[in-house]
C-alpha cells in the first residue's frame, strides 16, 4: 500500500482519497466524510516526516471505517436511525491501534443497520451500489467498506464479520477480506451484533497489506475479556500440503461459474504439488439454521440497550416511559432489525429455549467438532463464499429466508470461530467478481494469509 514518505506526502494521499470519495458519491459508500480531521492528521504526519521523526507503519495511509466502530470523528450510527446523532466519546481499540501507526480515517462507511444483512440494503441511509455494476448490491453488511477498497478510494477498510459480513462483500467486489480467528482483534468500541460470533477484520487489495494490518490490530485487550494473547506475531508459518474441498457445497444451489472458479484454483494448486482432499461435513447443512437461532438471540439481547434513554434517537411520541421505549424502538429500528430481535426473543422465550436456543448451541458443538476433524485431514479448506455473485438490488429484500441463504457457506466459520479469507478468483461472463474463501484452523490466520499468495497465478 502507499505509505507517506519524503516523496509522497500524507496530505497528497488523503486529498486523493477524499477526491475519489466525492467522485464516487453516487455509490452511497460513506455516511460521513472526515475532511477536516483527516487533513489535519495528514499535515501532522508530514511535519513529522519533514522533521525526520519516526512515523508509524501506516503513516498517512487513508482508510475507511465501517460506521459501527466508535470514535469521536463523526457520529457512530451503525447506519441505524436509533443511533442518529451519537457522537462517541470513546475510541474502539482497533481504531486506536490503526491510528497509533499513522493510518488516517477519511470516512465512515455504510452498512446494513447494526450489520443485519447481506446486501447493505437494510441501511437507514439507503443501499451502497456494487463497484462493478450499479444495478447490483454491494453485499453486506460491510458493503460500504468493500466498495471503498474496490474503487481504490482507500488503501484498506475495516469491517465486522458476524456471519460473512466481510467475506461476502469482498467476494462481490473483487477484493481480499479477512475474518480472523474469534478473539484475535478486540471488539471494544465496536457496536455489537452477536457477541459470540462477531469478528473485526479488514478489506485489502493484497495479502501483504492484510498481514501488515493484522500485525497492527491483533492482540489481548483488557477491555475485551474474549481477546486472545498476541499469537499473530509469534505464529510459525505452516507448510501446507493438503487442501480440502467440501463435498456438500458442490450442489445445484451454487452458481456454475463459482464452481468453475473453484475447480480452476484446485487445478492450479495440484499443479503446484498440493493434494486436494474431498471432505464430508454433513453437520454444516445445519449451520445456517443454528446461526439464525444463536445470532438473533444475541442480537435481541445486545440491542436491548437501544431505548432512547441514554443516547441516540428518542421518539417524539415519548409521553410516558412505556411510550419512550416502544415508540423509540419501533421508529428507530429497520424491519430486518425487528425481525431478528423478534426471532431472538422467540428462541429465548419461556417454553422455546430448549427446543431452539439450546438445540442450536448443541448443533454448534457438532459444527466445531466437524472442523476439528476436517483439519486432521487437510491444512486449509477452499470453498465458495456465497452461492452466487452480486445479485440485483431489491431481488431478495422481500424474502428474508432467501437473503439468509446467501450466508449458508460463510456462517459455519463464525459458529466455529475459525478464520476465513476471501480471495478474488476472477469474474463471470457479466464481469462480476467471483470470490473464494480459504479457511484454516483457529490461530492459523498468518499462515492462511501467506498461503493465499499460492492461489494467484
Amino acid at each position, binding site marked *: 500500500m502507499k505509505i507517506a514518505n519524503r516523496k509522497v506526502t500524507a496530505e497528497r494521499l488523503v486529498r486523493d482519497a477524499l477526491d475519489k470519495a466525492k467522485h464516487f458519491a453516487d455509490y452511497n459508500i460513506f455516511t460521513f466524510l472526515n475532511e477536516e480531521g483527516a487533513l489535519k492528521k495528514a499535515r501532522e504526519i508530514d511535519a513529522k516526516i519533514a522533521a525526520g521523526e519516526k512515523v508509524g507503519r501506516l503513516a498517512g495511509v487513508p482508510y475507511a471505517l465501517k460506521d459501527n466502530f466508535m470514535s469521536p470523528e463523526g457520529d457512530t450510527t451503525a447506519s441505524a436511525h436509533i443511533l442518529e446523532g451519537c*457522537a462517541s*466519546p*470513546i*475510541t474502539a481499540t482497533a481504531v486506536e491501534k490503526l491510528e497509533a501507526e499513522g493510518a488516517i480515517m477519511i470516512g465512515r462507511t455504510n452498512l446494513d443497520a447494526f450489520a443485519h444483512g447481506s446486501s447493505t440494503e437494510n441501511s437507514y441511509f439507503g443501499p451502497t451500489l456494487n463497484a462493478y455494476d450499479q444495478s447490483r448490491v454491494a453485499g453486506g453488511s460491510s458493503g460500504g467498506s468493500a466498495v471503498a477498497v474496490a474503487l481504490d478510494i482507500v488503501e484498506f477498510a475495516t469491517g465486522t464479520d458476524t456471519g460473512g459480513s466481510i467475506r461476502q462483500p469482498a467476494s462481490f467486489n473483487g477484493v481480499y477480506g479477512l475474518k480472523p480467528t474469534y478473539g484475535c482483534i478486540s471488539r471494544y468500541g465496536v457496536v455489537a451484533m452477536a457477541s*459470540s*460470533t462477531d469478528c473485526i477484520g479488514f478489506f485489502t487489495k493484497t495479502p501483504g497489506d492484510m498481514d501488515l494490518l493484522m500485525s497492527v490490530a491483533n492482540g489481548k485487550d*483488557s477491555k475485551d*475479556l*474474549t481477546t*486472545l494473547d498476541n499469537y499473530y506475531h509469534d505464529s510459525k508459518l505452516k507448510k501446507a500440503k493438503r487442501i480440502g474441498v467440501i463435498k456438500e457445497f458442490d450442489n445445484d444451489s451454487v452458481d456454475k461459474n463459482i464452481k468453475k472458479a473453484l475447480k480452476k484454483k484446485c487445478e492450479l494448486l495440484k499443479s503446484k504439488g498440493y493434494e486436494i482432499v474431498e471432505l464430508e461435513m454433513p*453437520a454444516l447443512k*445445519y449451520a*445456517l*439454521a*443454528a446461526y*439464525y*437461532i444463536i445470532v438473533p438471540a444475541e442480537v*435481541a439481547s445486545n440491542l436491548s440497550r437501544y*431505548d*432512547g*434513554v*441514554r443516547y*441516540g434517537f428518542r421518539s417524539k411520541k*415519548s*409521553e*410516558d*416511559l*412505556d*411510550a*419512550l*421505549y*416502544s415508540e423509540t*424502538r*419501533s421508529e428507530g*429500528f429497520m*424491519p430486518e432489525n*425487528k*425481525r431478528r*430481535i*423478534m*426471532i431472538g*426473543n*422467540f*428462541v429465548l*422465550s419461556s417454553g422455546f429455549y430448549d*427446543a*431452539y436456543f439450546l*438445540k*442450536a*448451541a*448443541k*448443533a*454448534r*458443538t*457438532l459444527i466445531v467438532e466437524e472442523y476439528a476433524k476436517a483439519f486432521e485431514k487437510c491444512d486449509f479448506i477452499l470453498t465458495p463464499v456465497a452461492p452466487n455473485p452480486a445479485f440485483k438490488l431489491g431481488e431478495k429484500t422481500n424474502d*428474508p*429466508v432467501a437473503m*439468509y441463504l446467501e450466508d449458508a457457506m460463510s456462517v459455519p466459520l463464525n459458529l466455529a*470461530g475459525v478464520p476465513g479469507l476471501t480471495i478474488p478468483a476472477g469474474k463471470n461472463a457479466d464481469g462480476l467478481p467471483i470470490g473464494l474463501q480459504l479457511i484454516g484452523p*483457529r490461530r492459523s490466520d498468518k499462515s492462511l494469509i501467506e498461503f493465499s499468495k499460492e492461489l494467484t497465478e
Partner: protein
Amino acid sequence: MEIKREDILHLADLSNFSLSDAEVKSLGGDLQSIIKYISQLDELDTENVEPTYQVFEMENVWRADEILPQDASREELLALTVEAKDNQIKVPKVL
C-alpha cells in the same frame, strides 16, 4: 409450528415494539417462514451433545480490584442523552 397474531403481539411486547397492523401482518409472514426454516434443526440428533456458547478457549479472565481512570467522563456521557437534569438522566414519568 404456526405463528398466530397473538404470538406476534407477544414477541412485539417482549421486544418492546409498538407495531402497526400492517407490520404485524408482514412481520408475521416473515417470522413464520424464518421459524419454519430454523425448525429444520429438529432432524439433527443432538443427544448426549454438550452445548457450545463460546468459541473461545480461555477461562478465568478477570481483572484486579483497582480503581482506574475511565474512557469517558460523566459529563461526556450525560451529553449524549436527550435531556439531563441535576447530573441525572431525565425520562418521562412512569405510568
